[in-house]
């Protein structure tokens, strides 16, 4: 389209240049050819006139001679002698010969009787002598006028039969016509007379007689040729003279014609236009040549212009493309970037900056000056003076590179602001680039770390002070034994406390780093609970236990040692926080495929305002003298990590002053129904949230949170199958930030997020990695369909290969929840049979097995092109060497050592394996 417009433009320029050029050439040729033509016409006309005069004078000269001979006495004398019968012929013949030779061009001369009979002729032609020629024009002309007469052309009867005109003169004797003397004049001679004129200038003259007969010797015929139909001849015969253009076979000619009145003849002159206007041709050639050169230059110019325009368009397109790329790169950066001109006005800003401005200030009043804007922005920071100082330093020293940090007062968001001068290629200053990097999270993390260090320091130093202090006091010489014992016991207690603190803390650190080792077994939960209670019975002399467990086994896949740790924690808390004599109730109920174990105490309860922080590290209920209870403040945090690692839930209900009930929920290993996919709904509006729950609860487990912080926390702890995310959320984080953080965190990046909002932002959602975007209001069907589409296909065919039946059972229990069809094989050979029977979608493979081991199975799979793609999760208790790891790494999708085993991890690996295969196949 653009290319075409360029061509049009060039064509227009060409036309604009070419039209005047053409007109100039045309007029210059036309004007000069007009002048030349007039000149040629004039010359042709003059030639015709001269020709006419020449012919007339020639013919009248002839007539004059004939007339003079007619009056000669010799002629009369000869006639008289003839009459008298005397010799006359000799004399007359001499006269006639003389006359014939008097002028060139005379073919014959003869004398006729008044009745037209021929008397004599020279040269002698006896055959016609005596014949009557009264029919001839010359005879009739002379007899009619009685005067000399020039006849029209005829073919003479004399020797040679020349084409002639006759000049006839009456011979009178005393007024009586006694004879007629005639000189027959060759028409060819007349032609030769005028031809002398036409020798130059290519002008040809044509003379006709009064009948329009050509007076000339055309080569083609011996007879006469009539030119009566020639328009020139016809016009001249009618008495006209003039000039006209003739178009003939040999080309165009310019012609003049005029009558010769005295003879009744016509003369026409003509010159071929080609010749006459040859000079015009030269001029035209020159003009056309010059014009062509000019036109060529014009064309080249137009082409050059077109090319330049086209190049410019290409450059513009390239610039546009570059700008798009630059924009995309800028907008893709997480930092906010703005380029300020030398005047401090923004020249370029990326999406993140506009976002920040909108988030922080809403819309800035548009008509503010630069300084006013800076002042206004400064007021939003916690230290306006510092902000303005940075701006002042930038103004004072344009070369300064400054880095400063500012905090937004309202939202407590922190930004590091870096600014540096920007120069173009020539070194001229363009302005200043300012980059704002949000460091809120980093600062919060730092603060958290500082607080943690302070807390840990405090928590560690307290028992340490006890140990060191009492140890010092023990050294006093005058202590009694009882005091000494008491001091020693205190030292022991505090040292144990210190040890536990260190253990718990390190455990917790490891768990949080993802390194929690739980080894799952199928166990009866009742045993674990009973053992935990039994452990406390001896020491808890002031409390009574009430244990209420079902009569049937509660089989779960769990790490019994870790679960014991959790129960010990809950029971110990129950003892610590309830008065002496209280009854501690420990019970278990199974509901819907999961079991809930609860520990209830009649203790002091937890104040409502502190309940939220209950699972935080080092948190201890802050109430009168709770410190005397002891504890590390890490127990519940640890318990939560352990329960999470089991894929379970932990929670409590409590009323201050009345007691608390803590519970954990675990999935039952055997009897449980397939675990349903979990949807995390992030929605602050209770009505909307309730509606979503109604929509979803038939097919999914639904969890609702109201704020972004909670959403992220929950998603990290236990990644849901899908997140439905509202955008307008109360609190620190908007839905966009929740989305960005989830996608930026390896633990939650894989969870599909559906943005459910009443506002716009589909593109932004997609850019941030949302899986889909639903605009409120949406229908139940639409929501369910969207979620169903995003969930991974369930029900893969998984082959579990292990010689240990317990492990197979465990894996089956774990994966059965996911909807997979599980087949089992007790060794490698059986596995290959099962694979041959039906190709599984994934294989969970033990390495050390009888008959055929896992390495061999991997090798067989690798050897078959069809089976090579089956994802394999190697599950092994064996500690692998580097070489073995490499061997497996090349063939298996993933490796899970049994010491690292957790159901969640196995589920994740299988999901990943199935997804991966789908991706490879696609």
């Amino acid at each position: 389209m653009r290319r075409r417009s360029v061509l049009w433009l060039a064509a227009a320029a060409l036309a604009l240049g070419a039209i005047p050029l053409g007109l100039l050439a045309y007029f210059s040729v036309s004007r000069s050819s007009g002048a030349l033509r007039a000149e040629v016409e004039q010359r042709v006309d003059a030639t015709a006139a001269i020709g006419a005069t020449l012919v007339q004078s020639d013919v009248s000269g002839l007539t004059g001679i004939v007339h003079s001979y007619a009056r000669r006495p010799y002629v009369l004398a000869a006639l008289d002698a003839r009459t008298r019968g005397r010799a006359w012929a000799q004399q007359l013949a001499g006269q006639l010969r003389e006359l014939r030779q008097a002028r060139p061009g005379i073919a014959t001369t003869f004398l006729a009787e008044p009745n037209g009979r021929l008397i004599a002729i020279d040269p002698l032609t006896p055959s016609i002598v005596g014949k009557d020629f009264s029919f001839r024009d010359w005879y009739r002309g002379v007899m009619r006028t009685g005067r000399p007469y020039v006849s029209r052309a005829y073919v003479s009867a004399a020797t040679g039969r020349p084409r002639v005109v006759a000049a006839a003169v009456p011979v009178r004797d005393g007024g009586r016509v006694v004879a007629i003397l005639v000189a027959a004049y060759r028409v060819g001679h007349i032609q030769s007379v005028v031809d002398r004129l036409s020798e130059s200038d290519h002008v040809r003259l044509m003379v006709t007689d009064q009948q329009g007969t050509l007076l000339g010797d055309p080569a083609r015929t011996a007879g006469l040729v009539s030119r009566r139909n020639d328009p020139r001849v016809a016009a001249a015969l009618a008495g006209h003279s003039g000039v006209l253009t003739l178009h003939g076979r040999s080309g165009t000619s310019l012609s003049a014609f005029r009558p010769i009145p005295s003879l009744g003849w016509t003369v026409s002159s003509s010159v071929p236009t080609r010749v006459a206007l040859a000079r015009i041709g030269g001029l035209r050639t020159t003009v056309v040549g010059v014009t062509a050169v000019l036109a060529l230059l014009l064309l080249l110019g137009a082409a050059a212009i077109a090319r330049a325009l086209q190049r410019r368009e290409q450059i513009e397109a390239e610039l546009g493309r570059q700008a798009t790329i630059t924009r995309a790169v800028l907008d893709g950066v997480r930092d906010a970037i703005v380029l300020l001109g030398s005047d401090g006005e923004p020249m370029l800003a990326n999406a993140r900056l506009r976002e920040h401005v909108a988030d922080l200030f809403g819309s800035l009043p548009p008509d503010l000056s630069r300084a006013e804007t800076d002042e206004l922005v400064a007021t939003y920071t916690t230290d306006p003076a510092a902000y303005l100082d940075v701006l002042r330093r930038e103004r004072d020293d344009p070369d300064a590179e400054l880095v400063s940090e500012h905090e937004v007062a309202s939202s407590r968001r922190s930004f590091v602001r870096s600014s540096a001068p920007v120069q173009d290629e020539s070194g001229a200053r363009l302005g200043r680039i300012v980059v704002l990097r949000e460091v809120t999270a980093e600062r919060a993390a730092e603060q958290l770390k500082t607080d943690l260090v302070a807390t840990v320091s405090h928590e560690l130093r307290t028992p340490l002070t006890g140990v060191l202090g009492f140890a010092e006091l023990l050294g006093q010489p005058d202590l009694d034994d009882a005091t000494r014992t008491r001091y020693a016991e205190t030292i022991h207690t505090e040292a144990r406390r210190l040890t536990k603190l260190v253990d718990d803390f390190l455990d917790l650190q490891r768990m949080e780093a993802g390194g929690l080792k739980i080894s799952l077994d199928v166990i009866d939960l009742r045993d674990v609970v009973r053992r935990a209670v039994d452990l406390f019975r001896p020491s808890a002399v002031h409390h009574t236990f009430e244990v209420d467990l079902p009569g049937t086994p509660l089989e779960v896949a769990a790490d019994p040692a870790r679960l014991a740790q959790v129960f010990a924690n809950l029971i110990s808390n129950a003892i610590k926080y309830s008065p002496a004599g209280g009854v501690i109730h420990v019970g278990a109920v199974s509901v819907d495929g999961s079991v809930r174990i609860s520990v209830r105490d009649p203790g002091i309860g937890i104040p409502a305002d502190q309940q939220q922080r209950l699972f935080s590290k080092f948190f201890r209920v802050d109430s009168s003298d709770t410190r005397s209870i002891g504890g590390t403040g890490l127990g519940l945090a640890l318990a939560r990590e352990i329960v999470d690692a089991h894929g379970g839930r932990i929670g409590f209900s409590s009323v201050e002053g009345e007691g608390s009930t803590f519970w954990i929920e675990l999935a039952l290993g055997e009897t449980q129904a397939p675990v349903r996919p979990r949807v995390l709904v992030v929605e602050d509006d209770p009505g909307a949230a309730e509606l979503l729950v109604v929509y979803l609860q038939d097919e999914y487990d639904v969890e609702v949170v109201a704020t972004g912080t909670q959403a992220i926390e929950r998603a990290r702890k236990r990644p849901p199958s899908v997140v439905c995310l509202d955008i307008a959320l109360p609190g620190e984080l908007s839905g966009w930030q929740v989305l960005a953080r989830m996608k930026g965190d390896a633990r939650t990046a894989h969870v599909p997020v559906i943005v459910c909002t009443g506002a716009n932002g589909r593109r932004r959602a997609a850019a941030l990695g949302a899986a889909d975007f639903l605009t409120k209001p949406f229908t139940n069907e639409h929501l369910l369909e969207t979620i169903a589409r995003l969930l991974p296909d369930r029900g893969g065919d998984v082959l579990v290969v292990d010689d240990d039946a317990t492990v197979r059972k465990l894996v089956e229990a774990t994966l059965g929840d996911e909807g997979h069809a599980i087949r089992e094989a007790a060794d490698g050979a059986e596995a290959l049979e099962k694979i041959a029977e039906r190709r599984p979608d994934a294989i969970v493979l033990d390495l050390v097995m009888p008959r055929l081991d896992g390495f061999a199975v991997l090798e067989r799979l690798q050897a078959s092109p069809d089976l090579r793609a089956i994802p394999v999760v190697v599950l092994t208790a064996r500690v692998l060497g580097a070489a073995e790891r490499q061997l497996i790494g090349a063939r298996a999708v993933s490796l899970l050592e049994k010491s690292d085993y957790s159901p969640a991890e196995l589920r994740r690996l299988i999901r990943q394996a199935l997804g991966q295969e789908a991706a490879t196949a696609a």
Partner: protein
Amino acid sequence: LPRVLVCDDEPVLRALVRASLERDYEILEAHDGTAALRLARDRQPDLIVLDMMMPGKSGLDVLAELRTEPRLTRTPVVMLTARAQVADREAAADAGADRYLAKPFSPAELVAAIAELLESRRR
């Protein structure tokens, strides 16, 4: 006997202070800041040993309130803290603490500090 008020949320630390001082001083114990202020007003101790990091009112909060009470303005205060940073020391000094002991501290050191403070106050 001179009267010393000990305020710390950790029982073991109160026990340690008591064990260190009980021969020469009458000891009052408070497990948090509120209790400490009440006891200080009611019993007019000669010296206060105050933990800095406590739930609820911190040691610094308590000290600030003490310094607004006319009768307690000049009561010597020994701050106990787990924090060992200069900033904390300065914060304690700014709030009007007379001595600063970082945990873990030596009982002898505490005894010496208290004796010295009471001695100088007496003069």
